[in-house]
C-alpha cells in the first residue's frame, strides 16, 4: 500500500500544545515522522534582550505554560550566579515548596492527559480537579493562578500568607489518600495497560545520543540522574527523597515513575514545611531604583530539574541594565524534535499522541 501522509496537529485533540507531527503511515504503522515546531514562536530570547532585568521577571514564566515556576527558578538562579546574590535560608525552602507544588500540578495534568489519547476521560476530569486545588493554593500564596512571578532574583516576592500550611496539609493528605485510587483508575487499568505496556520504547543505548533528560532518561538507564540529587540547588541536599527509576523504558515505566514522583513531592513539601526557618525571604537586589539595576559582566548557565528534564537558562550580561543574551534550553527539546523523528517510526498511529504525552513534550519551550 502507498504511504499516506497524516498530520497530528496543530489543531488536533490528541496533540497537547500547538505543534504538528507529520506522519507518513503505511496502514496503521508510522514509517517516517517529523515534528514541525515554531507555531508558538514569540521571539522570547530577543524580547528578553529588550527588557530590563526586573521586567524580565514577568516575561519568563510565559516560556513554558504548564510549568512556569521552573522558568522563574532557573532565571533567578542564573541572575544570582552572575550577580553573586546570597538568597536567605527561608526563601530557599519557600522556593522548594513552590517548585514541588508545580511538579505535582504538572504530573497530575500529564497523568490526566494520559486519559486524552486513551479515551479515559474520567481520569482526566479527576486529575484536573485536583490540579485546580493546587492552582487555588497558588492563588492564595502568589495572587496568580498560573503565572506566579513569585520566585525573583534574590529570594521570593513575599512571605507565605498566614495559615497556608493548613491548606497545603489538607490537600496533600487528600491527594495521598487517593493515590491508590488514581493508580487503579489509570495505570492499573487493564485497558490502559494494553496501550502503554511494551510500546513507545526509548531504548537505553540511545538516550545519550538524543540528550533526553528527566523521566524519559531515568526510566531507561536505571540510575538516579536527577539534577536535584546530582547537582543540588536550593536546599535539596538537606531533604531526604528518592528518585524513582526503571530500566525498561516503555510508556508504562515512564508513567509509573511520574506517579512515584508525586509521592516524593508530597514528602518533600512536608519536610520543607517542618524544616523551614523564620527570617527574611528576599535580599534587596539594588540600592535605589530596581529599574536601574545592573548586573555585572559574566556568563552563567543555570539549570533546574523540571518535570520533563533539565531546564536551563544560558545568560550573558555585559554589565548593563538589560541582559545581553538569554538562551533557553527547553527541557523537552530533544524528545520532541529528535525523539519524534527517530523513535516514533515503527509504532502505530495510536501511539503518537501517547509519545507526546508520556514524554511530556511541551511545545512552547521548544519554540520560545
Amino acid at each position, binding site marked *: 500500500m502507498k504511504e499516506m501522509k497524516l498530520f497530528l496537529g496543530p489543531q488536533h485533540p490528541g496533540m497537547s500544545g500547538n505543534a504538528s507531527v507529520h506522519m507518513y503511515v503505511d496502514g496503521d504503522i508510522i514509517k517516517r515522522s517529523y515534528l514541525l515546531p515554531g507555531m508558538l514562536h514569540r521571539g522570547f*530570547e530577543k524580547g528578553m534582550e529588550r527588557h530590563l532585568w526586573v521586567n524580565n521577571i514577568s516575561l519568563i514564566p510565559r516560556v513554558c505554560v504548564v510549568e512556569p515556576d521552573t522558568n522563574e527558578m532557573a532565571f533567578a538562579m542564573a541572575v544570582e550566579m552572575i550577580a553573586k546574590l546570597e538568597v536567605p535560608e527561608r526563601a530557599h525552602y519557600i522556593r522548594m515548596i513552590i517548585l514541588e507544588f508545580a511538579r505535582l500540578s504538572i504530573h497530575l495534568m500529564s497523568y490526566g492527559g494520559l486519559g486524552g489519547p486513551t479515551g479515559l476521560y474520567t481520569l482526566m476530569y479527576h486529575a484536573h480537579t485536583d490540579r485546580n486545588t493546587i492552582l487555588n493554593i497558588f492563588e492564595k500564596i502568589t495572587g496568580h493562578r498560573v503565572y506566579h512571578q513569585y520566585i525573583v532574583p534574590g529570594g521570593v516576592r513575599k512571605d507565605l500568607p498566614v495559615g497556608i500550611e493548613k491548606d497545603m496539609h489538607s490537600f496533600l493528605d487528600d491527594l495521598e489518600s487517593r493515590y491508590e485510587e488514581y493508580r487503579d483508575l489509570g495505570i492499573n487499568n487493564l485497558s490502559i495497560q494494553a496501550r502503554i505496556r511494551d510500546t513507545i520504547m526509548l531504548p537505553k543505548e540511545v538516550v545519550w545520543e538524543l540528550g533526553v533528560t528527566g523521566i524519559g532518561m531515568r526510566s531507561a538507564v536505571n540510575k538516579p540522574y536527577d539534577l536535584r540529587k546530582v547537582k543540588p540547588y536550593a536546599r535539596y541536599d538537606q531533604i531526604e527523597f528518592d528518585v524513582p527509576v526503571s530500566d525498561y523504558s516503555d510508556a508504562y515505566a515512564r508513567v509509573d515513575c511520574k506517579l512515584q514522583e508525586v509521592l516524593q513531592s508530597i514528602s518533600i513539601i512536608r519536610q520543607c514545611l517542618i524544616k523551614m526557618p523564620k527570617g527574611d525571604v528576599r535580599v534587596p537586589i539594588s540600592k535605589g531604583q530596581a529599574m536601574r539595576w545592573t548586573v555585572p559582566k559574566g556568563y552563567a548557565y543555570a539549570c533546574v530539574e523540571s518535570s520533563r528534564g533539565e531546564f536551563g537558562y544560558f545568560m550573558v550580561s555585559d554589565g548593563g541594565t538589560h541582559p545581553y*543574551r538569554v538562551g533557553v534550553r527547553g527541557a523537552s527539546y530533544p524528545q520532541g*524534535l529528535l525523539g519524534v523523528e527517530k523513535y516514533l517510526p515503527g509504532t502505530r498511529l495510536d501511539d503518537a499522541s501517547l509519545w507526546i504525552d508520556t514524554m511530556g513534550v511541551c511545545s512552547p519551550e521548544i519554540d520560545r
Partner: protein
Amino acid sequence: MTNSMSNTEFVTNLVENQYKVLKTEVLDQYQIAFEVKKEDVHSILSLLKTSGWIQLSYLSAVDWIKDNEFEVVYIVFNWDKAVHIQIRTRLDRESASINSVLPIYPGCKYYEREAHEFFGIKFPGNPDYEKQLILENWDDIPPLRKDFDPRQYSDKKFSHMEYKNDFVNKDGKVSKQEAREKRFSDADKLRTGGKK
C-alpha cells in the same frame, strides 16, 4: 563538597594540559567555562565525550556586534561528575561558519539548525541546517542578531491597535504622563551623557 571541587580541578587539568585555552572561568563548584580557539573545539569536545561528558545540554550563539564576532557556546554535562562545561569560541561575524559537531553529539542536529536560523552561522556537516525550522517565510536578517530591531519589523508588518484620545485636559496643566516622560528622558540624558 571536596569531591565536587576536585571535579572542576579534574576538568581544568584535563583540558588545559592538552590544549591551549584562552581563558578559564570557574563559575561555581558545578560549572566551568573554557574559551578556546575555533580549531580546537571539535577535539576538545571529543575528548570530553570520551571522558564522560556524554550529554550535550545546549548549543547556541551570542552576537558580539562591537567586536564583529559571533561566540558559539557548547554546554556539555556529565551525570557522574556533576560539572557543566561551557566551551566557547569566537567566529568572524561576516563569514561565520563552524563544522558541525553532529558526529560527536548527534543531539546537536536541531540546535545547530536553530542557531543558523537565528544568527546565520553556517554548520557544514549538518545535512539540513539551512532549512527553516521555527520561522516560516522569513524575509529579513536573522532575528537574534543585534542589528535586527523587532519593533521596527513589527511596526512595518503588523498594524497596532489605535486608541482614541477621548479625554480633554480641563485646566490646561501639563499632564502627569508628559511630565514623567520628560523626567525620564532627562534622567536618560544624564546617565548616558547626552548620547542617544
